[in-house]
């Protein structure tokens, strides 16, 4: 089984080569190749889940070969309980996105090739246990995103693509400085790039002299790493790239961006920033919690003010990722589990929202709740599009955290966890939930109820393909809302290990 991660990682690249070798004008062949590739990848992740030992907190399915022996850089892969849900999410969302991108007809070959390349790099980020490899995947991921937003995006796509790219690059170049500093702090030894070996608070005592003053190594480079990951999450005040990127990106790319790429940021905290610098993480948890709280409240208010429904959902992502940051800063079993669960659940629910907006956009060619001239963009969709409305209701309620659907469980766990540490913040954060319910329901009211807008009468309801790819997400949202234990069992051991480590330093 040790090679299975290699297969999952490289299969999309094989698919990409297949897509590129397909003759021109055979667009359907390209689509089929992509679909088959993503389907096999999805099946492989299910196999991975079947063989996963939930009792083991450490790394499983490890695979390691030397890459640059002189610098002790390895091609080292492995997953644990935190990675597995993300892996599944990545495989699932790309499968669904391939189906939802069936209608893309501009330069089909390039689009699907880039999509597959993106999937591989995202897997690479999640699987890498070597810091250098991690960084390479983290950066290479930007290339397909840049082109996907820039070529297939909306009107203002160039600005959005460049902003997205520059922000992430800015954060990650600081991470690179941190990586190199770690390499020398460990004395260029065998394990200098080994993420797992670096963990456990080895740098608590280390100090540095900078411009004549003594600085703690751990505290300084925690912030370097923080910058790299916070831009990706995004945490307030680094979130300003997100609305642009989301609004301009094509539907499938928005789904991937919100569904998986944002999780790479919080995954970075879980895998790298917290375990490698536990003392600093504990010390600065209040700052992280406050930034998370600002993201929750500010994101929610911003969402409420939007007239563009896609922008509304984009800001709701800022708000929901703020909850993940809150859960992380809690550093308790419930909070951390809640955070990882929220990462998965936000992935499914927000993917539903973006897909549904994409479906609507294909019919209406605009996304205005209220058009710039003040008239209503939509109205009475509930009567004209009954099937669509049902799916939309499921997605929306999952997103706002209705009990019985997935969002509720994770948010409840986060609140349970954080209440033990930051009572005031918890109370304020609950208001964020309330605002969340308000903007979503208000949006729903304005779009689905009221008089039927004459334009909306001509829209067709969801077709079989659209229903087919929405069903798995609906199942995820409902099943994990009632019965989250398949996910919780998987992550329990690994999360517990991290919490124990952090507890040693608090």
């Amino acid at each position, binding site marked *: 089984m040790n090679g299975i991660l290699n297969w999952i990682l490289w299969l999309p690249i094989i698919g990409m080569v297949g897509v590129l070798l397909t003759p021109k004008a055979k667009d359907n062949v390209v689509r089929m190749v992509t679909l088959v590739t993503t389907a096999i990848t999805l099946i492989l992740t299910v196999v991975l889940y079947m063989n996963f030992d939930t009792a083991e907190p450490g790394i499983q399915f490890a695979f390691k070969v030397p890459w*640059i*022996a*002189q610098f002790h850089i390895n091609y080292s892969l492995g997953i644990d309980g935190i990675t597995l849900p993300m892996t599944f999410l990545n495989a699932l969302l790309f499968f669904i996105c391939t189906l939802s991108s069936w209608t893309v007809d501009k330069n089909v070959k390039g689009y699907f090739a880039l999509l597959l390349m993106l999937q591989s790099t995202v897997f690479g980020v999640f699987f890498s246990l070597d810091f250098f490899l991690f*960084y*390479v995947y983290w*950066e*290479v991921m*930007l*290339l397909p995103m*840049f*082109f996907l937003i*820039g*070529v297939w995006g909306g009107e203002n*796509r*160039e600005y959005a*693509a*460049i902003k997205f*790219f*520059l922000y992430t*690059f*800015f954060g990650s*170049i*600081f991470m*690179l*400085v941190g990586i*190199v*500093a770690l*390499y*020398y702090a460990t004395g260029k030894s065998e394990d200098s790039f080994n993420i797992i070996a670096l963990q456990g608070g080895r740098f608590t005592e280390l100090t*540095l*002299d*900078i*411009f004549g003053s003594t600085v703690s190594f751990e505290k300084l480079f925690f912030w370097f790493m923080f910058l790299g990951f916070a831009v990706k999450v995004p945490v307030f005040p680094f979130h300003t790239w997100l609305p642009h990127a989301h609004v301009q990106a094509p539907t499938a790319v928005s789904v991937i961006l919100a569904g998986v790429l944002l999780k790479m940021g919080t995954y970075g905290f879980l895998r790298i920033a917290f375990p490698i610098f536990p003392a600093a993480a504990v010390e600065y948890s209040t700052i992280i919690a406050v930034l998370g709280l600002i993201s929750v409240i500010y994101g929610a208010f911003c969402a409420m003010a939007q007239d563009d429904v896609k922008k509304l959902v984009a800001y709701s992502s800022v708000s929901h990722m703020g909850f993940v940051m809150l859960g992380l800063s809690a550093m308790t079993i419930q909070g951390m589990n809640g955070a990882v669960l929220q990462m998965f659940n936000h992935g499914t629910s927000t993917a539903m929202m973006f897909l549904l907006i994409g479906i609507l956009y294909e019919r209406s060619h605009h996304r205005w709740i209220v058009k710039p001239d003040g008239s209503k963009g939509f109205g009475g969709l509930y009567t004209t599009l009954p099937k669509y409305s049902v799916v939309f209701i499921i997605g929306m309620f999952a997103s706002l955290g209705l009990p019985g659907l997935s969002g509720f469980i994770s948010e409840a766990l986060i609140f349970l966890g954080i209440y033990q540490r930051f009572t005031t913040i918890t109370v304020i954060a609950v208001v964020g939930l309330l605002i969340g319910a308000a903007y979503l329901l208000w949006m729903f009211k304005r779009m689905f109820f009221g008089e039927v807008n004459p334009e909306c009468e001509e829209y067709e309801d969801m077709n079989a393909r659209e229903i087919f790819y929405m069903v798995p997400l609906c199942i995820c949202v409902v099943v994990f809302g009632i019965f989250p234990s398949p996910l919780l069992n998987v992550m329990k051991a690994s999360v517990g290990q991290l919490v124990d480590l952090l507890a040693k330093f608090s």
Partner: protein
Amino acid sequence: MLQELFGYLSYYIPELMCIVLMTTLLVAEASVKDEHGSRDKIYAYAIAVLGLTLIPLCQNMGKNPVHIFHNAITIDAFSTLVKIIMVLGTMGAIWLSRSSRDIYTNLKSEFAIMAVGVLIGGMLLASANNMLTVYLGIETLSILSYVMSSLKRDESTSTEAGMKYALYGGLSAGVALFGISHLYGTLGSIQFVEMMPKLAGLEGGRLAIVLISFLMFFVGIGYKISLFPFHMWTPDVYQGSPIPVTAFFSIVPKMAGLATLVRVSFVFFTDGSALTVSWIGLMLVISAMTMTVGNVTAIGQSSVKRLLAFSSIGHVGMMILGVVVLNEVGVQAILFYGISYLFMTLIAFYITSHLSDMYGTDTYDVFKGLIYKHPVMAIIMASVLFSLAGMPPFSGFIAKFNIFSVVIEKKYYGIAIVAAVNSVISLYYYMKLAKIMVFGKSDGEERVLGFTFQNQAVIVALFIPVVVLGIFWEQVMVLSGNASVFIK
């Protein structure tokens, strides 16, 4: 005595080959009657001989370092690797001049002749082991460069470039010579090995004179590799010169100057004295300023040649960080950077040259919608731009990573941050070009581009190292590592 001299010559074969090549090219050029038919033969001959020099050069890589011609010249792995880079750069530039319309047809053989001449000067600089050889090298390299930059003789910008280059270059060489003569007067020697021990005993006024003379000497080198504040000539000269010349200038004189900087720094500043500390401080400031000025000014440019000129200033600012750390890994990082920069720069200039030949201008607009006109070239150019900015999985990332690595090892965190921010700035302007290429709609008039099969093959061949060195870079690192172990 004579026998000894001939024994030394066996180390000097590459230079001798180049000298023979230059003279025979002169004769061949003069005796050509049929302008068009024989010109290709001249190119083939020049490139073949330059290619052949790689064989003795590769042999020299493995040999033990020697000082030949009474300590005037050092042949070691370091100088040899720099020479290999320069020979490859010259070959690339000569091949580019073949198809470029920027150089008039009847001047093309002259370009090859002068390029080989500059190369000889560069080789002299790379091996220089005393102050006089350094000066000889600078002059040989410069005088032909002045002519090369004004090759486009009926364009005022090119004439201006030649004039500017000659004035700045002449002045800086003079200042350097002034510094060298003061050093000789104070220390009583021009040999690097003899100068160093005498440096230790200096005090008071003599130390001050030595310091000032060193500064003057570095002004000369600083001009050649366009360090801040001696960079002002670079954009105008780069823009005015024909593109093959610009490509040549951004590789060969730069590498030669850097090699000299490395060698002189290692001779004089390895003892940890007060002199060394102040020199490190000065170089850190110069590096930070060079990077920042180069990259920030590049943002506002509208000509691709000027963009590449300013970005090359930024790259040199990054490269000299490998000198500042004063250790072997620093030199290793410079050499790797040089190798990776060679291929990236050549590709960027090749593609720019073909496009500007097409449209007769080199503004950003010529790149508009390249992805629809010539997808392969557009992808290669975009990759090279990302590589220049330091994105994995391309060689530019590894080059930057090495520089970061040596700087952080020395705990110069401040400059590491400056370099990091500069990477972001450089990404911005490279991306502006990539954006026009990929997102821009072409203006509808689809013209067939001048990418012949041969040129495409060369570009693809040059692109292979950019990718390979980004993923499997260990061998080249080992090679540069071996070359950086040189005697002091």
